[in-house]
């Protein structure tokens, strides 16, 4: 169940590395109990945002909160990490340890470790317990990293590209594990991904980041209802209009057809009727198109 509490919150987050502004005002609000997809182009600032949340990098400006605790407070952050599972995008673990040793190493840090889930995932993911991490394929390493994150009894999972490099069957296994986890436990999943289809499939919230800024965020169903395309056909040539409604993203005139893309359907509905077209045709916009429009308009 999605609650009022925020598992992740950032307010106007800025991060500078040398003379590069990696984050230029990121605002995030991820409610507890939700599955939130974090979308953005490469280099948009997804990994940096995650690093700031987990205390791996310090924000230049702004606030970041993880399960209510300020990310900048080293002691509080270290404590709250007991309830957070993390998988990095490189999925790097200790090369020289075996899978079994890696699990044995991680287990004692988490008093809420779930031995039952450990058993389940060891079998489900078919992990070669006595092979060293450096000898594992990327897909298997990802599964080990996921097991280590899922068995912690965590309240929040932060996953950076959890299915990258996995074949579709393994990727589906991973998504299924995540979905099963959220259904069974009181848990939030925050995952970044390039696979928009995945976000479409399992997320109920979404945040899109571009050039270090949040460009769009909120519940996915809301987004799907409000972000719409309308096609107007006129008796004569389509009029050249400057639309007054807020949220209009793009207007396309072709002959007698006017196509309007808007972020917010409701204010536009009345205005569209006032143009007196012959037909009005509203259609939904796919998340992929929403994403592409959101990051393109920033150029």
């Amino acid at each position, binding site marked *: 169940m999605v609650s009022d509490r925020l598992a992740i919150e950032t307010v106007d987050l800025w991060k500078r590395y040398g003379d590069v502004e990696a984050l230029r005002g990121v605002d995030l609000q991820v409610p507890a109990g939700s599955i939130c997809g974090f979308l953005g182009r490469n280099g948009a600032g997804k990994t940096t945002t995650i690093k700031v949340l987990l205390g791996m990098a310090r924000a230049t400006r702004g606030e970041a909160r993880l399960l209510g605790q300020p990310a900048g407070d080293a002691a509080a952050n270290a404590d709250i990490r007991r309830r957070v599972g993390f998988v990095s995008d490189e999925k790097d673990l200790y090369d020289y340890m075996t899978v079994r040793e890696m699990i044995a190493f991680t287990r004692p840090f988490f008093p809420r470790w779930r031995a039952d889930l450990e058993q389940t995932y060891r079998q489900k993911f078919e992990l070669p317990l006595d092979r060293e991490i450096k000898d594992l394929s990327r897909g298997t390493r990802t599964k080990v990293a996921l097991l280590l994150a899922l068995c912690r009894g965590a309240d929040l999972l932060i996953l950076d590209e959890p299915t990258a490099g996995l074949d579709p069957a393994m990727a589906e296994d991973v998504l299924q594990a995540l979905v099963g986890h959220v*259904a069974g436990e009181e848990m939030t999943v925050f995952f970044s991904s390039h696979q928009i289809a995945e976000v479409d499939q399992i997320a109920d919230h979404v945040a899109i980041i571009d050039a270090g800024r949040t460009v769009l965020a909120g519940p996915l169903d809301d987004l799907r209802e409000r972000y719409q395309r309308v096609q107007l056909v006129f008796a004569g040539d389509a009029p050249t209009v400057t639309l007054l409604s807020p949220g209009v993203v793009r207007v396309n005139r072709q002959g007698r057809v006017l196509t309007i893309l808007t972020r917010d359907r409701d204010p536009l509905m009345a205005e569209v*009727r006032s143009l*007196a077209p012959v037909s009005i045709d509203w259609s939904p916009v796919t998340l992929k198109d929403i994403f592409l429009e959101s990051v393109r308009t920033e150029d």
Partner: protein
Amino acid sequence: MLFRPNPASGVPIYLQLMEQVKHAIATGALRPGEQLPGIRKVAEELVINPNTVAKSYRELEHEGVIELRQGAGAFVSEKAPSKRAAEKFRAAQTDVAATIEKLRAGGVADEDIRRLFEAELGRR
């Protein structure tokens, strides 16, 4: 019985699920009084968000198609509307929406539309 919804179709997933349940009832795959699979099971099998499944079930309960019994699960309503009735209702919904759009496109204000409908209904 329930198959994977298409996330990219533009129709919200919870609506697609609702349709599937109603279809299952109409074709007899689910009978009145029968239990629906649990939220977690559906989420895991179809690999979709459990909150979405929960939303579908809530909406279905709201429409009277299913009953949510505390602690026991979701059950097909004994008084579930038949396929024909549901279809008729939906077709009517589409007709009304189309008529309203046409009237609006013709320049008739919403207030006037409402008065027109009420007037027509009141006449019977």
